């Protein structure tokens, strides 16, 4: 096994999902559904690590990626003005991908997973709405909220198939990816996002810029993830090596950017 093997697994699953979600009009006006490689990696991690994996697992993993793609579409909706044709179709793209996730799980009659994923969507919607509510929360609570948003569906998938041992690593990895993405977006677009406003208000971060807050979190999360991977008794050595190489190369890239 090598990094190319993992990439192939991820890209194959992604290709299948995109094929199932394909809709001519949606593609034209809203683009491809967002199916993130990092999410697919953590969904596939048990398979890559040699766990029993059937067509049922593959379909269920696809369904999880579909519901995440659905929720992602609705994040593209402008808070004030969604009257353009592409925004209107983006609303429907989310609903369509959501229907496709349900259809996929109904076809394999996985009613328990349908239930737990629905519960996850309920919780995620509550957490996303919390970003708009006036209640004061401390940093720990905000990080719990962000973790639910980023990880809940994948956590439910791993639980459903008794891959509980992978949950901790997947959660850390997914939150790390989100912060990296947030940093990259901020550096490129300087957007004043809800997450930015929430984190900047925390007294723990007084005097730090948003970029510094994110960089601090990225370093911290990366170190924790490396520690978790190294100390995981269930991960094959070759899987550990590939994952660590990936994180460390990302970290050194991140370090170079900070110094640059």
């Amino acid at each position: 096994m090598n990094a190319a093997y993992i990439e192939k697994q991820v890209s194959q699953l992604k290709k299948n999902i995109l094929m199932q979600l394909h809709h001519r009009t949606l593609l034209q006006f809203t683009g491809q559904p967002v199916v993130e490689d990092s999410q697919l990696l953590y969904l596939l991690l048990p398979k890559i690590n040699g766990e029993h994996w059937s067509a049922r697992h593959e379909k269920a993993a696809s369904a999880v990626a579909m519901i995440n793609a659905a929720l992602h579409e609705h994040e593209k909706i402008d808070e004030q003005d969604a009257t353009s044709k592409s925004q209107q179709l983006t609303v429907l793209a989310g609903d369509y991908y959501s229907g496709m996730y349900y259809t996929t799980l109904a076809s394999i009659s996985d009613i328990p997973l349908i239930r737990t994923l629905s519960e996850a969507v309920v919780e995620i919607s509550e957490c996303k709405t919390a970003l708009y509510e006036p209640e004061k929360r401390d940093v720990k609570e905000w990080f719990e909220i962000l973790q639910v948003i980023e990880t809940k569906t994948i956590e439910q998938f791993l639980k459903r198939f008794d891959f509980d041992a992978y949950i901790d690593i997947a959660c850390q990895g997914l939150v790390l990816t989100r912060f990296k993405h947030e940093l990259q977006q901020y550096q490129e677009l300087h957007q004043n996002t809800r997450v930015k406003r929430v984190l900047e208000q925390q007294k723990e971060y007084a005097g730090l810029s948003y970029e510094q807050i994110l960089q601090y979190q990225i370093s911290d999360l990366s170190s924790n993830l490396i520690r978790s991977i190294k100390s995981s008794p269930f991960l094959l050595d070759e899987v550990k090596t590939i994952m660590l190489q990936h994180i460390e190369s990302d970290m050194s890239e991140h370090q170079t950017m900070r110094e640059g």
Partner: protein
Amino acid sequence: MEKMKLKFLYADLQSDIKVIERELETALDSSSHYLKDASLHLLKAGGKRIRPVFVLLAAKFGRYDIHQIKNVAVALELVHMASLVHDDVIDDSELRRGRPTVKSQWNNRVAMYTGDFIFAKAIENITKIENQKAHEILSKTMVEICIGEIIQIEDKMYLEQNIRDYFRRIKRKTALLISSSCYLGAIAAGVDEKVASHLKRFGYYVGMSYQIIDDVLDLTASDKQLGKPAGSDLMQGNITLPVLLVKENADMRPFINQALNGTMKEDERQAFLKKIRQSDAIEESYRISNLYLQKALREVEALPSNSVKKSLKDIAIYMGKRKF
């Protein structure tokens, strides 16, 4: 008033409808104040609860157990509610049932989360029914409704569409969810496939008839009755049956073009409404709606003798004949 009439038609179900109302409220409970307020805000605004009623009536042809069947009824109403919340974002609507929409009271993003929350609650509810077929039906219905809405956006402003396009659109927009309500009620109560298919077709025909009437009323009812300007469908670019029937009329075409390109003034809107109300298009639309209604009634006739047959008939007639 109209809602009162409808409630009278299913008076025998009142206690079970109360169970559904309580379940809907419980289902929409949330740790998020915004989501809870937004969802309950919509719930309290009322609605005819047509879909739950059809679920219950269809289930009466099988092993009727309100504690089981309520899960299907609640799910169907929640799917309908969620789609309304998202539709208000798409249509940029400020009011729904006389109240501010979720998007206008909060914002589009909160409306998206509210819709997602309600959709998820709908699915969560129906998972209490351990029947693969029920899930296949509901999930396919949700996808088809979405495809219908996508087609509606594609067809907007497109005057060269034909009546078949219109029927295909309203089938997905309205008829499918009513049809699935009947079918799912039957499936969940263990009704045999032949009877379940009659109920499914009944729901489809009622839905078609209902939507045609809805589209006619958009042109014939008063602004006050509608809670929005009459003719709004056309002004938003939605081409409905009466408009398709008059679009080749040289007197009407200039008005239609004005409405579609957004240049119609108030006096022109009034003149357009007067003309179309006097045209054969309204009569012809009623006639087509009535054809669907008659088909629905034939499906009822084919059902086994049962005390709810009359209710199904009465509700179908009410929906197909309503004046507002």
